[in-house]
């Protein structure tokens, strides 16, 4: 089953797992890297619930650990993957772009491109517009 040739597919990933607290975020990144290595397209990764913390540009893991945000950024830069962060889940948990920060009268922000704050409608679009949707959770 595993050796048979198959079509190139487009994937959307849905990530609920927080970075470093649970393996789910690492599993999602590993899966994305393996999918693009096989020639598939990972069109978008949608970060929801505690998964939004994957988008923090202030993430600073020890040097001997995988840098998850860096891993996601590489995926976006090398393979054109959209990194979509649920704005409602993000704002509740303190994830803000420069634009949202200004809107809320804050002095700092921690979300920058290629991570983009967006609505749940983008998750619906991702579900409708891709061949596969794979969820990674805590």
């Amino acid at each position, binding site marked *: 089953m595993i050796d048979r040739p198959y079509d190139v597919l487009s994937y959307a990933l849905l990530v609920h797992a927080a970075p470093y607290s649970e393996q789910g975020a690492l599993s999602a990144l590993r899966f994305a890297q393996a999918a693009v290595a096989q020639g598939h397209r990972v069109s978008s990764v949608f970060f929801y619930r505690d998964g939004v913390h994957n988008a923090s540009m202030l993430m600073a893991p020890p040097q001997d650990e995988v840098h998850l945000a860096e891993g996601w950024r590489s995926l976006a830069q090398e393979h054109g993957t959209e990194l979509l962060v649920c704005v409602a889940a993000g704002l509740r948990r303190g994830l803000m772009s420069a634009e949202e920060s200004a809107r809320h009268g804050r002095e700092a922000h921690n979300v920058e491109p290629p991570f983009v704050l967006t609505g749940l409608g983008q998750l*619906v679009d991702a*579900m*409708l517009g891709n061949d596969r*949707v794979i969820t990674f959770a805590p």
Partner: protein
Amino acid sequence: MTDDETAPAADTQPISLDLLVILRHPPHGSSWLREGVDVALVAAAFGQAVGLLFQGDGVFALVEGQGAGPLGQKGTHAQLAMLEMYDIERLWVSASALRARGLTLADLALPALALEADEIDHLVHAQPRTLLF
């Protein structure tokens, strides 16, 4: 007397929606249920035909008499009251989940259909897209 479209027999046939959302978590203790229902509501607002399947502790989402929490947690009862407004009227519950928790359909605040295991299998396999929360 004539059969109408709300007859239970029609509801037990697998129906194909655009999206089935399976809810397995109870309200209040985590936001799984709340953020899962949010996805269902947004998908419905985007014109998708959405149904909900409650399994495990998710069936507690439908129990009558819920309210807000002491620190103002909204819970999900208000959200569930919005389902009909968004045309989310297909609600299924696991019959075994109800039995294991000493509940019956009469304990639920919204009309739902109880499904045995083989019916849940058929329901899930009839859907093009399923998300679980």
